[in-house]
């Protein structure tokens, strides 16, 4: 299991290849990558604030729970903070399991919990000014299925 909270961009392809190559028992690897949408050209940048210390603790706890529940062979979370431009990757998760249903479920679980339980806050910066992204009811609701 690897967890990185960083300002630097990451290479989705290099991360996915390294993750897959490290697997010896897993037949299924799932990745999710979140990309900054430009909202039809209105967004010039995204700023991500986080809570150093708590961020790593919260993500590690979510990953350990996912690994336990779906008997994952491995899991990876990379989440950036700081200033990001449109089209840049914000974060990725990867899961590896013997069977695909577990790899998919664990990746969705990680995403649902990261969205609502890891201390990150996004601010959209556009031509008209800056605004904090509001939490969505549907993201909170997504947690109830687990």
């Amino acid at each position, binding site marked *: 299991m690897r967890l990185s909270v960083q300002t630097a961009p990451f290479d989705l392809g290099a991360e996915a290849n390294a993750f897959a190559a490290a697997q010896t028992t897993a037949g299924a690897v799932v990745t999710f990558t*979140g990309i900054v949408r430009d909202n039809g050209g209105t967004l010039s940048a995204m700023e*991500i*604030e*986080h*809570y150093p*210390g*708590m961020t790593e*603790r*919260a993500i590690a706890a979510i990953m350990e729970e996912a690994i336990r529940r779906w008997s994952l062979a491995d899991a990876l979370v990379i*989440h950036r903070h700081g200033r990001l431009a449109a089209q840049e990757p*914000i*974060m990725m998760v990867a899961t590896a399991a013997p069977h695909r249903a577990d790899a998919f479920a664990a990746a969705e679980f990680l*995403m649902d919990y*990261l*969205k*609502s*339980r*890891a*201390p*990150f*806050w*996004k*601010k959209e910066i556009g031509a008209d000014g800056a605004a*904090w*992204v*509001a*939490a969505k009811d549907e*993201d*909170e609701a997504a947690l109830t299925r687990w």
Partner: protein
Amino acid sequence: MIEILYFAWVRERIGLPREKVATQAATVRDLIAELSAREERYAMAFADLESLRVALDQELSDFDAPLSGVREVAFFPPMTGG
């Protein structure tokens, strides 16, 4: 002394990212009342508890949690990572 941290728009409304506070508040709710009585900017930041979350020593908690033994309290809006 308790260290209090503010994030996102809570930080912006209060105007600082962290501060040390001497308090005898028994619960998070008591601490919020104390801070809100201080200055308008605190009262504004804490006006709607529904839109706030609190973490005690880096664990999500709730407003009725006791503060005894707690060293770090953080206030922030609902999280929007991912």
